[in-house]
């Protein structure tokens, strides 16, 4: 019973005293009768663990202090003490109880013994002889040795004595004495049992370990357990005092000796990044008094780059003061790395996803836009075809017999149709530019001609009394390279816009070379020039900002100092050493119209925008024109700007870079040196004409020119510049002739020729011209003759390849044109000229290879007029056969032909020239006739036959193809007089 009680008590105590010190199983284990002898499963493990005590670095004194001073320490200790005391008290109590019990029993036994003795004495007195000494102990021993009894079995017999015999008889006393003896025996027996028990109990007590031993064992087990945990835990545990000096550290992977750490601070131990941070963090915890966790990345010499998760908790004294910190660190470098990598990946994925979404969106939008644009383009195209059919048919209808009303209706119909067509064209253009489908072409063109033609075209359809004029500065090259169609489109657009918004005064185009495509500067320059112009201008309109000069004035303007200076600077700046140079030409389109209000300027170039709804109603138009112009100009690398003053007029300016194929100095020659020549040169040529004017009066006659202004524009250096272009670069040296004398000589001869031609052409022209009643014939003649002059000059230029005899020859030939039979004359003149070059006076044999009847007819006729009769064959095979029959001085070869194309035929002919046989042709299936081979053998061709390709499209690639196949040159179709002439001049004469 006692043992059971003890048991229960202990269990209660356990739960009460050690609630959370260590795992429950251990606690109960330990509590349950403190039996270390019966270890649990975990204890087996523990036994196997050999605890390496080395890593444990304990400042025992400190630990004691800790347990003494810290809250938890003291509580723990108190608990231990209480437990200990309780246990001791319990033991004492147990022992005492046992002792009490025993002594009580003993007393009882003594009492009984006395009583019995008394009774026996009484009996002995009566029956003295019967007395026998009874050894109680002996008897007891005898009884108890055999049967050790359990306490429970001990029955204290307190029965009363029952004696049957009559009182105070001998039997009675005998019976009584026997009975007492029995009682005594029982008592002695009981006593024996108790003594035995006592001894056993004492033995047990001795055997049982003391509580201190038990406790130390428990502690040891806990310690072992902690070691077991710590040994496998990748952590550093430490305690630091208020000054953050290490007082205790446990490190599973020690890199430093204990003495290196204890008593020092982090900063004293390590150096590197992160140390200071951890120190600060610990201090923070120390100050705040709240535990905290943080990840700190260290970069120290000691252990490299590592990230630690640090848990720091403050340690308080009993008074609640912070006296230090407990610190636990775990190396989480890998985890952090992984985590960071994960984060990065996640981030990347997110970014990628976002991008993808964005891209999808963009793609979607782009697709939509493209589809919309495509649809617009397709629609426009689809609409255009039938619409142009309608308009065209309406035009045809207008040529039939109609009454007045019908005609009016038809005109409205036509104009509306035209408007729609134009709108669609504009839309198509715009979408082409925007979608990047607009391809720019690079072709040679003459800016002067473009300006002239634009104005001419505008004049032709002019419904108002307006003066149209054009100024081209002297330094603008005669020929430049650019997309002439687009430039024309821009100019036409701007000019017709200007006309539309101008009711009186003039509309004009100015061309000049500017130094640089610096748009900011050019704006200023524009202001400056216009300012200058209004000063110089002598006309009555000079008070207006936009100059409207008389012819006289304009010629002055052309030569106004500011401008020429600018131009000259520009020209000199543009002097490179290469053969190709870029020149920036500024083009102003000005008018004296209604102008543009300032607020409307920003939206001016936006599509479908017009200055106002009123304007749109009044003037019509699609509102796309300027947008297209702007787009086109920007596409060509320029910028379109506008300056305007309301009620005075507007100026649209664009500067575009053009290529000039050969760099030529055109500003070196001083003007005065050749001024004489300029003066006597009444007739100027188109190429260098710098001023055009279309007066309102001359609406019917399309063109009027002013000789006086032109006089200044014709300059020898212009011709010098013109030469190389006409020569297609065949004699670049001619333009770089260093001496002025040579150039002027050449020019003089040209001038002569021009004069001659002017004279000779005139009668012819007047023949037809005189019959026209509504035109001033002379003007037209001049124009025509001027054109001819230009052509001739080109001829001259062609011929002027350092051969002095040629100008005179041309002169001859032009003189001969007076005569009726041109062919003969030409032939004679040519024979003259050929004789000078020591060539047999034979008519050049020319072969035309062409399959198209119309082309043949045209070419034949042209050649006839040029004084040549030609042989014609229709395809490559026939051409080869023809060449087999005889040699030719020139072969004009169509490229694209049935049976055999021009390229193949050329290859075969070249192969023959190189090898002297027609094997290649035979291989190609052309059998040479026997007669021809004889001929060939007898007259072997010593020179290479010039073969000139005639290509339908003069694209560079096909030109290259022509050259690659052995052709000498190429002429783009349709052939013209000019091209044929140049060709003949180059290869035949």
């Amino acid at each position: 019973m006692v043992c059971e009680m003890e048991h229960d008590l202990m269990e209660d105590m356990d739960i009460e005293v050690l609630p959370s010190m260590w795992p429950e199983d251990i606690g109960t284990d330990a509590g349950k009768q403190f039996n270390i002898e019966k270890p649990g499963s975990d204890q087996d493990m523990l036994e196997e663990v050999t605890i390496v005590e080395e890593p444990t670095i304990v400042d025992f004194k400190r630990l004691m202090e800790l347990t003494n001073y810290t809250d938890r320490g003291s509580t723990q200790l108190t608990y231990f003490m209480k437990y200990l005391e309780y246990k001791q008290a319990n033991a004492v109590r147990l022992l005492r109880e046992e002792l009490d019990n025993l002594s009580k029993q003993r007393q009882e036994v003594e009492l009984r013994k006395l009583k019995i003795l008394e009774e026996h004495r009484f009996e002995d007195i009566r029956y003295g002889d019967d007395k026998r000494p009874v050894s109680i102990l002996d008897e007891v021993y005898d009884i108890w040795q055999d049967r050790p009894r359990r306490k429970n079995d001990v029955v204290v017999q307190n029965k009363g004595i029952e004696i049957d015999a009559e009182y105070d008889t001998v039997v009675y006393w005998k019976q009584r004495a026997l009975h007492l003896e029995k009682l005594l025996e029982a008592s002695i027996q009981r006593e024996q049992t108790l003594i035995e028990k006592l001894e056993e109990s004492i033995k047990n007590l001795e055997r049982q370990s003391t509580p201190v031993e038990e406790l130390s064992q428990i502690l040891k087990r806990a310690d072992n357990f902690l070691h077991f945990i710590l040994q496998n835990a990748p952590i550093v545990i430490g305690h630091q005092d208020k000054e953050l000096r290490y007082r205790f550290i446990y490190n599973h992977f020690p890199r430093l000796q204990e003495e290196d750490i204890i008593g020092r601070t982090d900063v004293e131990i390590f150096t590197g990044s992160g140390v200071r941070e951890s120190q600060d963090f610990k201090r923070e915890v120390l100050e705040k008094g709240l535990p905290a966790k943080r990840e700190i990345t260290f970069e120290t010499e000691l252990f490299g780059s590592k990230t630690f998760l640090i848990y720091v908790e403050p340690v308080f004294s009993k008074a609640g003061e912070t006296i230090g910190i407990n610190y636990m660190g775990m190396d989480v470098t890998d985890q952090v790395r992984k985590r960071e990598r994960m984060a990065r990946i996640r981030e990347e994925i997110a970014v990628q996803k976002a991008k993808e979404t964005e891209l999808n969106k963009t793609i979607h939008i782009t697709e939509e836009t493209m589809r919309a644009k495509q649809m617009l383009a397709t629609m426009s195209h689809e609409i255009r075809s039938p619409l142009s059919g309608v308009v065209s048919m309406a035009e045809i209808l207008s040529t039939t017999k109609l009454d007045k009303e019908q005609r009016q209706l038809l005109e409205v119909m036509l104009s509306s149709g035209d408007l729609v067509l134009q709108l669609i064209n504009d839309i198509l253009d715009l979408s082409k530019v925007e979608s990047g489908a607009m391809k720019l072409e690079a072709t040679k063109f003459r800016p002067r001609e473009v300006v002239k033609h634009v104005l001419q075209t505008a004049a032709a359809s002019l419904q108002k009394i307006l003066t149209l004029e054009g100024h081209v500065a002297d330094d603008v090259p005669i020929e430049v390279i650019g997309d002439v169609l687009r430039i024309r489109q821009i100019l036409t657009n701007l000019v017709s816009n200007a006309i539309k918004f101008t009711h009186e005064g003039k509309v004009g185009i100015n061309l000049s070379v500017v130094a640089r495509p610096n748009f900011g500067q050019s704006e200023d320059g524009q202001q400056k020039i216009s300012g200058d112009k209004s000063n110089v201008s002598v006309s009555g309109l000079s008070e207006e900002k936009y100059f409207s000069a008389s012819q006289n004035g304009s010629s002055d303007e052309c030569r106004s100092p500011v401008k020429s200076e600018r131009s000259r600077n520009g020209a000199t700046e543009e002097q490179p050493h290469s053969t190709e140079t870029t020149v920036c030409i500024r083009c102003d389109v000005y008018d004296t119209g209604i102008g543009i209000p300032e607020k409307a300027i920003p939206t001016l170039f936006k599509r479908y925008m017009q200055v106002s709804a009123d304007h749109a109603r009044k003037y019509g138009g699609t509102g796309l024109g300027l947008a297209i112009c702007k787009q086109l100009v920007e596409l060509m690398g320029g910028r379109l700007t506008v300056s305007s003053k309301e009620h005075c007029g507007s100026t649209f300016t664009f500067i575009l870079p053009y290529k000039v194929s050969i760099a030529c100095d055109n500003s070196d020659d001083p003007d005065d040196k050749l001024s004489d020549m300029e003066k006597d040169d009444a007739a100027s040529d188109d190429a260098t004409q710098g001023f055009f004017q279309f007066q309102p009066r001359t609406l019917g006659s399309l063109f009027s020119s002013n000789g006086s202004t032109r006089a200044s524009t014709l300059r020898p250096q212009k011709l010098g510049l013109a030469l190389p272009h006409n020569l297609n670069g065949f004699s670049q040296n001619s333009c770089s002739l260093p001496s002025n004398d040579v150039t002027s000589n050449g020019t003089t001869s040209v001038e002569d020729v021009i004069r001659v031609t002017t004279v000779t052409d005139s009668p012819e022209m007047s023949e037809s011209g005189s019959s026209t009643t509504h035109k001033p014939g002379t003007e037209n003649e001049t124009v025509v003759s001027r054109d001819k002059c230009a052509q001739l000059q080109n001829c001259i230029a062609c011929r002027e390849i350092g051969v002095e005899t040629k100008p005179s020859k041309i002169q001859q030939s032009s003189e001969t044109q007076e005569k009726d039979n041109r062919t003969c004359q030409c032939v004679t003149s040519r024979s003259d000229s050929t004789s000078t070059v020591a060539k047999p006076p034979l008519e050049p044999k020319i072969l035309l290879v062409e399959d198209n009847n119309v082309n043949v007819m045209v070419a034949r006729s042209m050649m006839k007029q040029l004084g040549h009769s030609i042989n014609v064959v229709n395809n490559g095979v026939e051409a080869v056969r023809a060449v087999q029959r005889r040699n030719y001085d020139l072969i004009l070869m169509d490229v694209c032909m049935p049976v055999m194309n021009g390229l193949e035929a050329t290859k075969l002919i070249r192969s023959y020239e190189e090898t002297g046989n027609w094997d290649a042709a035979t291989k190609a299936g052309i059998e040479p006739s026997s007669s021809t081979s004889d001929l060939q053998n007898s007259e072997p061709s010593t020179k290479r036959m010039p073969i000139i390709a005639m290509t339908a499209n003069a694209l560079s690639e096909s030109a290259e193809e022509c050259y690659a196949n052995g052709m000498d040159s190429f002429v783009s179709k349709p052939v013209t007089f000019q091209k044929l002439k140049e060709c003949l001049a180059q290869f035949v004469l």
Partner: protein
Amino acid sequence: MEVGQIQRQWVDCMKSLFIEVSTLLPTIKTLEGFLDAQFLQLKQLQDETNPEFVVEVVSLFFEDSERLLADLTNALDQKAIDFKKVDAHVHQLKGSSSSIGAQRVKNACIAFRSFCEEQNVDACLRCLQQVKQEYFLVKTKLETLLGLEQQIVGAGGSIPMMELSL
């Protein structure tokens, strides 16, 4: 009819052949004329020695073109269209039209050829329509012009000189 009047008509006709302008509104953009400078070349080729040259060339052009157009119509009517053949025809037509300066026919031919390359039957048919249309337009115009010229010559006048550079 009076010669002068015919001459004026001729001039108008010439103009309309070269610069197609709508008469009521000033154009923002010049539309392609029916003819280009090449036609002027032809006119230059005509002289006393060859007074009928233009008529001859133009007639030849008409003859050729009509044959080619018929061939083209036929070729495009086939079930299996021989695009090579079509292309060759169009090339011919392009060549002759460019030689007489019928630029709108020529340009239509250029578009035609590009579709031929794509073997786009629908577009080819549309182009044929376009080419035909342009051809008949220019034919009408040229016939009118040449008719007027004959009238002028017949009435004893001379063909007016015109400055039409393009």
